[in-house]
């Protein structure tokens, strides 16, 4: 069984902050991490591989340095990895990202299962997974917290909704987006680390996946950012001082005034 895991390199949340004095954005150092939900996606894929046997390929669309992220997951036991990288991909919205990933998955051929994270922590859209499945015309399930194969060509998942949980059965090929409940990421092993270090990673550009310039990146996007700004800072903070009894009384009144429900 062929499994693909989609991972994304994102700026570490620590790097993107608002300077409390100047009220502008600041970055300290340029550090990237793997989107945490994608590490859960990798773990879910590897657990399936442990149980049933599978070939797990990681893919990322990003700048050349995203290779680092791929080597990281190779060191955790992913079998091989593909870097989708081309200047033409820059500025992609979720649609253009999904278009590029779909082309790459088609090129791989014969993929039974695709794992994505629930969402990427930079954009927080949670759209790429469902859009990718739709473009590939395969069924999908979002917010999955448990999964297993159900017979040779079906997947059974437990997904979390706003009201509780649901159990779904999907025919393969299918795509799932996962939550942290699928399992904590395993640490890199020595054996896999060595392999990861030496591995040569194929880099696919737009020609390799058969896409035209105007279907990818900013040119292939439907949405356009027109403005980026700092959120208004809350200027209304109160600090409650004094003995505990006073603080209790003040908080009680504060919540009443704020018309907090339940009070």
């Amino acid at each position, binding site marked *: 069984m062929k499994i693909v895991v989609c991972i994304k390199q994102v700026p570490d949340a620590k790097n993107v902050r608002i300077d409390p004095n100047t009220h502008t954005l600041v970055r300290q150092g340029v550090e990237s991490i793997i989107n945490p939900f994608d590490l859960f996606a990798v773990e879910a894929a590897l657990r399936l591989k442990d149980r049933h046997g599978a070939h797990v390929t990681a893919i990322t669309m990003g700048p050349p340095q995203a290779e680092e992220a791929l080597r990281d997951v190779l060191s955790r036991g992913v079998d091989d990895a593909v870097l989708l990288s081309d200047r033409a991909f820059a500025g992609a919205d979720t649609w253009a990202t999904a278009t590029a990933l779909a082309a790459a998955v088609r090129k791989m051929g014969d993929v039974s299962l695709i794992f994505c994270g629930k969402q990427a922590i930079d954009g*927080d859209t949670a*759209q790429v997974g*469902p859009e990718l499945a*739709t473009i590939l015309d395969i069924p999908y399930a979002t917010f999955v917290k448990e999964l297993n194969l159900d017979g040779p060509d079906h997947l059974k998942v437990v997904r979390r909704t*706003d009201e509780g949980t649901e159990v779904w059965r999907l025919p393969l090929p299918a795509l799932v987006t996962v939550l942290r409940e699928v399992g904590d990421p395993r640490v890199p092993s020595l054996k896999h680390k060595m392999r990861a270090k030496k591995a040569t990673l194929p880099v696919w550009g737009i020609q390799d996946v058969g896409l035209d310039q105007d279907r990818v990146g900013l040119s292939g996007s439907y949405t356009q950012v027109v403005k980026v700004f700092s959120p208004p800072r809350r200027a209304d903070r*109160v600090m409650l001082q004094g003995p505990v009894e006073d603080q209790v009384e003040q908080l*009680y009144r*504060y919540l009443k005034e704020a018309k*907090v429900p339940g009070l």
Partner: protein
Amino acid sequence: MKALIDPQKCTVCGVCEDVCPVGAISVGETAATVSDECTLCGMCVDTCEFGAISLPQVGTGPKDDLSAYRGVWVFAEWRRGTIHRVSYELLSAARKLADKKGVPCAAVLLGSDLDAAAPSLLEYGADTVYVIDHPNLADFTDEAYANSLVALVREKRPEILLAGATTMGRSFIPRVAALLQTGLTADCTDLDISEEGLLLQTRPAFGGNVMATIVCPNSRPQMATVRPRVMRPEKDARNGRIEKVTLPEEVFQTRVEVLQVIPEEDVTAKLSEAEVIISGGRGLQKAENFHLVEELAQLLKGAVGASRSAVEEGWAPPSHQVGQTGQTVAPTLYMAVGISGAIQHIVGMQGSKVIVAVNKDPEAPIFDVASCGVVADLFEFVPAFIQRLKREG
């Protein structure tokens, strides 16, 4: 493609260089230059006081006649008999957008046995409520919901389509957008109409550290999911009508089998729905003490949240975790008890209306986002506060 710098306007002040998260900007002698590292994230654009930076335009030109699309639509979220509150919130927002554009406003209700549910949508400003009633829509599946909504959109051509950023909306609306081949903006917190008549969709990015305004210039409908509880539901009945829609049977088919739907009885677990969340962190010290948080939540009819540390200690199940790798919440009241306020926690709750932090360390970063800070030992403060709440009855 990369960010564009107007050398005429650039004053080589260097602000953009500090702001770029990927280090793609360097300031030369006469103007800043952008390297190929640029990811077009747009962070530099707004920080340039001189308006010297802009982003190139999206390329996908209009596919068809955009003027053929008219009206503002809301997907009304039905959940086994009741309509989710976010649908009324969105309808009130949609009504205002529609009035601004001088176009009709409609709600689309999908589900099964909807006769009782549909009329309430008329009270919140809908000119028309389209009802798609089919037994296959009794259980939610992405395919049947998306395919039937898409069929109606193709027929009626609204220019704007909004849905709640709930688990349902965030699951199937991307499929709707992909099938219609149009743009979609997730989790918006503000909507407006631009001078040119485009939908201005504002949303937090980078965990709420930045806000971005996004448009969808060349394709229709312009689609957005909107975070629950940011818009206010307002009654505004206008002689609207209910229209039952019949669609070809095949749009209700799905490849997915729904085997079980297990509603969570326990209100303390329903974080995303809660108006009040009381969260506990490592400051509670041990499992037995977590009941302080639970009792407080019960008294305020709220849900229980937890920091990752508390989850790792096993004091609360993973589904209660708030933050980067847990849930993103924005209740009316978020109370953090014994939580330090690590950035990964803060990104999951800073959108809350009122934030109360109880921590004995006055330097704890949680106080940076709190609207009300209580510097106290939680073991003294929380029991006393519980007594106070009980006294009120």
